């Protein structure tokens, strides 16, 4: 028992969390007593003893987990050893290794994906509760206050601990393989990034236990609603800090990996588009996410220390919250979409067996999107009473983003043009579904970019419809496409395509049935974020709720398919899709250090149907490289097909 608590792991982490909480709580109490104040403070925006306790508990948890063991040794000048040789902390030999601080990018990728899907189902369950409440006018099962907490937590969970990190998880798994790197640039930082994520998720979910209920100011947490809200709001502020720090550290890691660890011959114009997508996303994360960290700190300071960032009466500026918040959160919608673009490019090119159309323009369009995304934030604020002169410039830049996005959509269509499409592959179905639903969401986005339409439909269900068409029809569809595409690589086993197709069609129908009518009731003026509504919208809402239950149930098929196939699915082989990128040239799942020898890249990644074209050569056994050298077991026969 004592030995178990000394070893790095979840046991020591739990102990560390408890000690950390005790330390933070005690520190505040002692400091307050020294200053002659009452030991604890329980005003609704206060509870400093709990807030500080939660921060120190999180660090205690991470220390207990072993996240800092190496760094502590390094800082003290004690002998250290590379993480790769630290057998216990690298690679998974049993399922238990997935619950440890692990530095293998493949293990971390799986940890990310599984954790984020847990939060996906929690957030989804919240949506189901909300749709039950909204099935009829009047109060059904939850009070309006609880409803406010539900939609806030649903959005916060889906955005901060599902969509953003699940992309990081998928990229964590495949990106180092794709560029021919043995691991990420900073494996320990990578593991630390992952373990901050459950902390953020637990804070969001745990806020429901706080006195006064969960945070209820929406995921946007506008001041002054948030600065005066009960304790749960502080949980949101802290959770965003941990999720934000996690994604900044991951993005930094991706950038360094992509820039410094590409295989010989892998120049920027040979990078697979998934790598390009993560390169541009990471640039956005590194340069935008600190803004939300900053603004949530300000809210926390206003709540805890009674500063005046957003206190209008004391000279603060309420509207500055929205400016600073959206300066992050508009780029954030591309953080949630660009990795999906990358996944879809991989899936479409591979399953259509065609070179991607306009490869360079596809890459440059990503750069165009990230540059433009910094110039559009105030289109969320057309009705906020901000500077009137800012409206038209923001409208124009917003509409301009449709150009690079359109380039991508048309390039995918041109890639599909003339290919032999067959609708049997689930990954391809989700990619095709994505093109349809994301285009609809993109078009309603262009509508919303126009100032007059935006003013008309602000805070109505039209917004809800738009956001779900781009985030569910966009991001989540690409996530499913990616999961189905790389499932054989990650697990070595094949999923059930029939169940996959059922999952796709039910998801598509459920999604359209749920979100298409929201456009109409939104245009008629049904306000969003309310538990009750005018009786005239009752029929539509009942229909929406029915379709949303179908949508929810369809995800259980996915869950079943993934769990059962992971354990009992037929072996997939190394390259079931006959794809060209490097991750398909190694075994499924890949060996612990990815490669015996770093592969050499000799051509573009998507040269399907081009005679004699090759993307990468693995190992020295290939005839054209070094015929004199002896063959290495296993590397023969893994060449591209």
């Amino acid at each position: 028992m004592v030995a178990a608590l000394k070893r790095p792991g979840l046991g020591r982490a739990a102990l560390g969390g408890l000690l950390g909480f005790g330390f933070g709580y005690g520190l505040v109490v002692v400091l307050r007593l020294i200053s002659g104040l009452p030991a604890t403070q329980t005003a609704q925006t206060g509870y400093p003893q709990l807030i500080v306790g939660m921060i120190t508990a999180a660090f205690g948890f991470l220390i207990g987990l072993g996240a800092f063991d190496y760094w502590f040794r390094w800082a003290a000048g004690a002998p250290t050893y590379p993480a790769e040789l630290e057998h216990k902390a690298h690679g998974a030999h049993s399922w238990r290794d997935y619950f440890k601080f692990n530095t293998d990018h493949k293990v971390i990728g799986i940890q990310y994906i599984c954790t984020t899907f847990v939060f996906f189902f929690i957030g989804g369950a919240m949506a189901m509760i909300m749709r039950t409440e909204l099935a009829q006018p009047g109060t059904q099962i939850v009070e309006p206050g609880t409803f406010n907490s539900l939609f806030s937590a649903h959005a916060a969970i889906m955005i901060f601990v599902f969509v953003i990190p699940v992309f990081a998880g998928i990229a964590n798994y495949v990106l180092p393989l794709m560029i021919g790197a043995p691991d990420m640039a900073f494996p320990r930082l990578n593991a630390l990034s992952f373990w901050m994520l459950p902390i953020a998720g637990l804070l969001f979910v745990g806020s429901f236990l706080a006195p006064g209920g969960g945070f209820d100011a929406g995921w946007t947490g506008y001041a002054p609603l948030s600065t005066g809200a009960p304790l749960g709001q502080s949980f949101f502020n802290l959770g965003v800090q941990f999720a934000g720090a996690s994604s900044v550290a991951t993005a930094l890691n991706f950038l360094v990996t992509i820039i410094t660890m590409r295989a010989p011959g892998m120049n920027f114009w040979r990078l697979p588009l998934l790598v390009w997508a993560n390169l541009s996303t990471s640039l956005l994360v590194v340069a935008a996410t600190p803004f939300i960290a900053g603004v949530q700190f300000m809210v926390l300071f206003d709540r805890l220390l009674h500063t005046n960032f957003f206190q209008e009466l004391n000279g603060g500026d309420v509207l500055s919250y929205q400016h600073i918040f959206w300066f992050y959160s508009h780029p954030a919608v591309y953080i949630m979409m660009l990795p999906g673009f990358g996944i879809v490019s991989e899936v479409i090119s591979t399953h259509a067996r065609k070179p991607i159309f306009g490869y360079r323009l596809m890459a440059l369009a990503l750069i165009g999107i990230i540059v433009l995304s910094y110039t559009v934030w105030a289109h969320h604020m057309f009705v906020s009473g901000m500077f009137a002169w800012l409206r038209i410039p923001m409208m124009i830049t917003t509409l301009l983003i449709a150009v690079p996005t359109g380039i991508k959509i048309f390039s995918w269509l041109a890639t599909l043009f003339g290919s032999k499409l067959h609708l049997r592959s689930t990954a391809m179905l989700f990619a095709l579904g994505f093109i349809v639903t994301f285009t609809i969401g993109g078009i309603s986005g262009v509508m919303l970019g126009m100032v007059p339409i935006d003013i008309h439909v602000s805070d109505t269900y039209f917004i809800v419809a738009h956001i779900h068409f781009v985030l569910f029809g966009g991001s989540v569809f690409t996530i499913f496409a990616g999961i189905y595409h790389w499932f054989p690589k990650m697990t070595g086993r094949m999923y059930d395509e029939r169940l996959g197709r059922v999952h796709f069609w039910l998801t598509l129908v459920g999604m359209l049935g749920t979100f298409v009518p929201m456009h109409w009731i939104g245009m008629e003026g049904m306000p969003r974020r309310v538990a009750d509504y005018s009786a005239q919208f009752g029929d539509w809402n009942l229909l929406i709720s029915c379709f949303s239950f179908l949508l929810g149930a369809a995800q259980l098929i996915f869950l079943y398919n993934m769990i059962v196939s992971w354990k009992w699915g037929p072996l997939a082989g190394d390259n079931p899709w006959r794809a060209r990128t490097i991750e398909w040239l190694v075994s499924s799942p890949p060996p612990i250090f990815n490669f015996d020898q770093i592969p050499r890249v000799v051509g573009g990644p998507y040269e399907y149907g081009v005679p004699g074209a090759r993307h990468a050569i693995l190992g020295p056994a290939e005839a054209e490289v070094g015929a004199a050298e002896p063959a290495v077991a296993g590397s023969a026969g893994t060449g591209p097909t």
Partner: protein
Amino acid sequence: MEAHAATVEHAHGPPEAHQSSRIDRQTLGILLFIVSEVMLFGAFFASYFFLRVVANVGPWPPEGFDLPTAVAGVNTAILISSSFTVHYALVSIQRGNRRGLIAGLGATWLLGFTFLFIQFNEYVHIGFSARNGAFGTIFYGLTGLHGAHVTVGLILLAMANIRAWRGHFTSEPKKHLGVEVPGIYWHFVDVMWIIVFTTVYIL
């Protein structure tokens, strides 16, 4: 293929990653981290802009807020001089001068700590708190955020100091990244202070 995976697993350590850029990972990593730090400061500077230009017209700082600009100016000089000492430490180890390394790092740490101490003293005697109007809030917001960064820099430099004493760095390339990387961060902290000082105390 399963068997293949198993043999490879125990055959050897990881293959050496191909270095595809002239910059090494640690340096690039700290530079990108500094980009994100600049943006964090950007959020607080944005707030400064809104509080000073949009929300409050009239004299700035408002009546009754007096800043000890002279003391802060001396403090600025102290912090800037620490940039030179950390550079001296790096140049020393590049030439194999261990004594210069230890002296440079030690001096940097002491100068940084002195800066932080004077800053703390200023807070104690300044006569207003973060609760006093928009000016108090953004004054403590910006200088406090910077102070937090000085603290982080001092922690990094403390590691470099300890490792230098224990004889860890040599003059070969990449064998003194533990001095170079905290040094880059420290230069950032200094440059950022010049901007914060100019904005808060002078403009």
